[in-house]
């Protein structure tokens, strides 16, 4: 036996360490910015879910006489819109569609894009080259233009808007997935697994997935803000949600007319989009920091 037990002098530590995600969670909780961002996201999400219980008024009930009331009017805390509907209620209800249309394409693209990217990277060779060149074609278009073109071609509507945004994000996620997987499969521990005689599927399952899904997930969360802005943009252009549904992008459009008389009210949906997307971004930044394993 060795003369020296390297461990015997180390500080005694718990027999079993926390799992990776537990320690990520612990680090995330210590990050005040990420926690504040998460709190904002949770408030907006909960408000959207429980909208019927907390919204003070019916978001569809309009009133010709009470149009464009200023912020602070009794009964209309955040004023009223160009059709006299309660802004606060519409903002709360609007979160439902805005969040749904912002988050859904990212989830779908995460599933599809990771699969494509990991597959291409692990197979390698000409398959990888062909897949990635096709992906590059999508990159030639700015994402806004691509989303508008696809939505325009598919026609207006919630479903088509989600489909076109998914198509916009799949190449971006696939590219990240491909590069992370390529890095991982060239690491020594994958080589060590190969020389242990492990098969491809075992290596992907045990050694690749665990190391690549995290970084791809972080990247995907950072896309949520872009997705929200794009889906609002589509609605603003009339390619997404149709009136009178409350949706922040669409509200921004219909309140255009009020921009000189009640600029603060016209800016409210934009502020909501801004706050939500920046919260997702800050949370994603915090998550990325928390996931960096110290060496």
């Amino acid at each position: 036996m060795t003369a020296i037990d390297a461990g015997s002098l180390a500080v005694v530590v718990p027999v079993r360490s926390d799992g990776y995600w537990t320690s990520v969670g612990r680090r995330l909780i210590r990050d005040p910015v990420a926690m504040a961002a998460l709190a904002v996201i949770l408030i907006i999400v909960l408000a959207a879910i429980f909208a019927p219980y907390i919204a003070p008024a019916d978001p569809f009930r309009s009133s010709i006489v009470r149009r464009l009331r200023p912020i602070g009017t009794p009964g209309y805390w955040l004023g009223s819109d160009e059709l006299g509907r309660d802004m606060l209620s519409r903002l709360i209800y609007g979160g439902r569609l805005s969040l749904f249309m912002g988050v859904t394409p990212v989830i779908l693209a995460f599933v599809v894009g990771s699969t494509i990217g990991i597959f291409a990277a692990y197979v390698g060779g000409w398959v990888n080259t062909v897949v990635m060149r096709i992906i590059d074609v999508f990159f030639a278009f700015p994402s806004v233009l691509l989303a508008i073109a696809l939505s325009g071609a598919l026609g207006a509507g919630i479903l088509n808007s989600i489909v076109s945004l998914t198509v916009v994000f799949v190449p971006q996620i696939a590219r990240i997935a491909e590069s992370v997987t390529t890095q991982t499969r060239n690491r020594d521990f994958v080589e060590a697994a190969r020389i242990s005689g492990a098969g491809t599927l075992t290596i992907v399952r045990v050694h690749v997935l665990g190391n690549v899904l995290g970084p791809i997930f972080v990247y995907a969360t950072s896309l949520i803000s872009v997705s929200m802005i794009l889906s609002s943009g589509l609605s603003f252009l009339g390619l997404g949600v149709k009136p009178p549904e409350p949706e922040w992008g669409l509200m921004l459009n219909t309140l255009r007319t009020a921009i000189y008389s009640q600029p603060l009210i016209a800016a409210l949906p934009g502020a909501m989009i801004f706050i939500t997307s920046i919260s997702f971004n800050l949370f994603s930044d915090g998550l990325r920091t928390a996931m960096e394993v110290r060496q």
Partner: protein
Amino acid sequence: MSGTAAELDPRDRGGAGTPLLDVRGLVKHFGGKGGFLAKKTGVVRAVDGVDFSVAKGETLGIVGESGCGKSTTARLVMQIIAPDAGEILFDGEAVGSAALDLKAFRRQVQMVFQDSYASLNPRLTVEDTVAFGPRIHGASAASSIAKAHDLLHRVGLEPRRFAGRYPHEISGGQRQRVNIARALSLEPRLLILDEAVSALDKSVEAQVLNLLLDLKRDFGLTYMFITHDLNVVRFMSDRIMVMYLGKVAEVGPSDPIFERPGHPYTAALLSSMPSMDPDNLTLEAPLTGDPPNPIDPPSGCRFHPRCKMVSAICSHAEPPLSDVGAEHLAACHLANPNSGHPRLAAV
């Protein structure tokens, strides 16, 4: 030294006289062909006709500078990359033949890499890493873990304290112990150590070298020990092979190589070692310039542009490995009395 342990090994096929590993005419060139949308590059002659053997129970040290092909040789033997030419016999059987398929070969040959961190999956605990090999070869989860704990104990890591930890939570020396335990988990007969102690702190390096000596004795192992550190290679090896630009420059038992190097390159390597004597500092560098690029190596003897003993013959004739002592060969015209090298008369 060639071990009694090896003779007791039930897996032995060829008997004590057959080398455990016999490599003949190994060649690997990289690049050269312009691929699809890829620029045509020069051919890197990483390994260019290498023959060697490793006897059962011995340690063969492989030394040389960067670009000499020592790590590529290890990867070729390990079948991580496919050779362009050459034959690898393991205990008398050709690797990949019906008698010894790749999977069976890999159970008997394992490797420890230089970078202790990169060679461990950061998401697996120490015990899961060590148990991975037995698990994929069909052992039950419980017996794999039991085996992992036993091996962790053997490499000096108390399982109670270390089994559940992750690679980033332990020190570099401890990680390399885990890598050694992982390599041993398939009960290999040959262990390839590719710069396995080079990244460790000196005080920890000594611990791991001692551990390797103990494990070799306890498990009846055979080592291929690749390093650039000449002190370490002498301490560890029975025989040493010196490589230069993809070729074997010299091979032989370790003490004669250090005391009477047969190749001018080996001599230069040895005198490049720091002197450790403040009153006798090195005054002149034994070699000038950097090791040349293995793309487009020099003609004849590949060492001739840097050699102090160079003569006309060296640039056009490639010297064969010639005897300079008992089982001690050097690829230098000076080692061959019939080569016609003008300095032979003087020597």
